[in-house]
């Protein structure tokens, strides 16, 4: 019985079981197979580097500027929305017959303000110099990239809509944004650099980055 390809590859890499090594010493076919695997590896390593298209750096900088503009636009949109909410809330409270806003909890105007505040607070946590983000493992990096992609998608929708979103949709997007930022803090903020944990609050709920 010949060793499997997996067994032979282990031998090629200087590992593998002694019985497989003994087999290969006595089996010309398997010895040839191991040699062929090594040859293939050398040929793969010998493939030339590929030349990227010209002008790549300029395109990267242009894309960075575009993303920064989109983010700034979002900040402005958030600030404008927050002011609007504040103006509406203040106006309601100053009316002589002012009564507390009614309706289901998810539809109250202060929910939107809470979400925006939480969003702002989480972004500050993410920008904090004490929050380390070493991007140590590809799996962690992939998780962070996935979260940032989802965040960018929400930001794009918020920016594209300006102030024209239905209230329920805006609430859903801002709520999703806070959840994603919360996950990002957890994914990135493993330590605060002083041996402790990052602490922050979302809607009054005290949280701690793991």
């Amino acid at each position: 019985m010949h060793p499997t390809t997996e067994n032979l590859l282990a031998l090629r890499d200087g590992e593998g079981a002694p019985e497989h090594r003994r087999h290969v010493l006595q089996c010309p076919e398997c010895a040839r197979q191991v040699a062929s695997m090594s040859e293939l590896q050398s040929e793969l390593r010998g493939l030339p580097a590929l030349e990227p298209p010209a002008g790549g750096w300029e395109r990267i900088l242009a894309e960075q500027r575009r993303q920064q503009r989109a983010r700034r636009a979002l900040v402005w949109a958030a600030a404008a929305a927050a002011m609007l909410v504040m103006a509406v809330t203040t106006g309601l409270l100053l009316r002589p017959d002012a009564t507390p806003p009614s309706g289901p909890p998810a539809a109250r105007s202060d929910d939107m303000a809470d979400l925006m505040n939480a969003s702002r607070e989480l972004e500050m946590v993410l920008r904090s110099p004490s929050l380390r983000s070493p991007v140590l493992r590809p799996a962690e990096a992939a998780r962070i990239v996935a979260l940032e992609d989802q965040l960018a998608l929400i930001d794009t929708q918020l920016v594209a809509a300006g102030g024209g979103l239905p209230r329920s949709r805006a609430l859903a997007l801002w709520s999703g944004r806070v959840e994603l930022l919360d996950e990002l803090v957890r994914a990135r903020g493993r330590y605060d650099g002083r041996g402790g944990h990052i602490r922050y609050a979302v809607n009054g709920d005290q949280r701690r980055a793991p």
Partner: protein
Amino acid sequence: MTDASGFFAEVDDLVLARARRGDPGALELLHATFARPVYTLGCRLTGAAEAGEDILQETFLELLRSLPSYRGDGAFGSWLRRIVVSKALMRTRRARVRSVEEPREISDSAGAWTPAPDRRWQLRIDLDRALARLPDVARMVVWLHDVEGLTHAEIAEAFGRSESFSKSQLARAHDRLQQWLVPERSNEHASDDRESAGAARR
């Protein structure tokens, strides 16, 4: 650790320190140094030049965002390579939603291919085509292991899977590459009976 794809080029500490502070010249120098390795790895992992170009851009955008947090406690090239791998993995995961994990069909132009006079050049064309034809995961594993020198444990960690997964994907890639490449090699070496040995094994 091998540097077959150029990720371990010398990087001056001063350049890195300046780049971390956002110095445009230092950042451009990093791009000039690593654009080829990043693009090459992106193309090899995904099997497509267009995807390689996207990964090149995404990787350097990530670098611009994350460089201030790079602590310098490992080789810079190694850190950068992990970003490339994670971008390629993300792309593969997205693509896998749309397609099954089967060997790709070679494009029509491949059928019209005629051997180049130089054997080494011909072999590279064959290898390029065979790599591109592999299923995504098998291609990524064989490249990361055989060329980039990642261990099965490191590949398992990157994919969030077991070492057995990495080993079986490597074997799968080798089986297919040998299957596709051995006939051509046998033509080059008429006296070499590797093809019949390979056929017997299969």
